[in-house]
């Protein structure tokens, strides 16, 4: 390993470490999961501990898109648009089984998993996921952010 690659991998680590604790999320809240999202975000479960407490309500300023709740076919173009508006680097969390697979809404109105429209990094199953599993998903995302190759 040359000194150069040693240096970049350390830099990667440093950047990863910094990024994982400054998650600015954009909550794309549509349905019931939003209630659990609220509960997770508030004082009781406090996701501020993970550096993810501050939602940015503009996709252009956010790093992580939290897709919370069922996405219907009518809503799908909106979601895609929001995703496209986010700047790199960006990650997507599918919150709840509806966003992962369509959940138990296997019908004409519902998108069968948002990964048919946009790429997803972390899936949090549950209908709705309990705050504990949301936090688990968030930590998984942090690991992913910290260990991936950083682009800057």
């Amino acid at each position, binding site marked *: 390993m040359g000194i150069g690659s040693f240096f970049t991998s350390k830099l990667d680590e440093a950047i990863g470490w910094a990024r994982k604790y400054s998650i600015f999320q954009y909550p794309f809240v549509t349905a019931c999961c939003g209630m659990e999202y609220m509960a997770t975000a508030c004082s009781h479960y406090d996701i501020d501990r993970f550096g993810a407490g501050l939602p940015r309500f503009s996709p252009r300023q956010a790093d992580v898109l939290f897709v919370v709740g069922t996405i219907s*076919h*009518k809503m*799908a*173009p909106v979601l*895609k648009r929001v995703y496209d508006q986010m700047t790199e680097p960006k990650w997507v969390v599918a919150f709840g089984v509806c966003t992962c697979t369509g959940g138990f809404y*296997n*019908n*004409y*109105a519902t*998108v*069968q998993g948002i990964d*048919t*429209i946009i790429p997803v990094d972390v899936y949090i199953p549950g209908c709705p996921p309990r705050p504990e599993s949301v936090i688990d998903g968030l930590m998984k995302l942090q690991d992913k952010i910290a260990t991936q190759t950083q682009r800057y």
Partner: protein
Amino acid sequence: MDGAAVLDAIRQRADVVETHAHRGDATVVVTRDALPRVLALCRDAPALAFDMLMDLTAVDYLKYPGREDGPRFEVVYHLYSLVHNHRVRIKTRVDEDDAVVPSAVGLWPSANWFEREVWDMFGVRFSGHPNLMRLLLYEEFVGHPLRKDYPIDRRQPLIGPAQ
């Protein structure tokens, strides 16, 4: 007034096809032509005074035992009177190829969105409605999903795969 008295009052003043009170729900079936008169009567007669159109919906009787050949749709009005605290259900039947019902928007503004929803879900039109557009689905959607012959998993995505 109790249900029987409501039914009597309507029967006396208008032509009705049939009435029943299954499980205590006073129900009147009227022809489409009589519908506007009956609805107006229900709202305006002081003894009835149905000032709220609580709900308006439709049922597709395509696969209902014994009703396969009859008129396909039934449009159902649930009325409630704040003054007298009583309820009534008014129904009218229409065929598939002539699925038009006079609009009730002039009587109760709440009919506006309910009728749009019925159009959206069943494809029953309301003549005289100011803005009969789909309420819940998108304009690109073809067909009316709550009809019994619309398969539940026929998807019509705007973007993404149809699966």
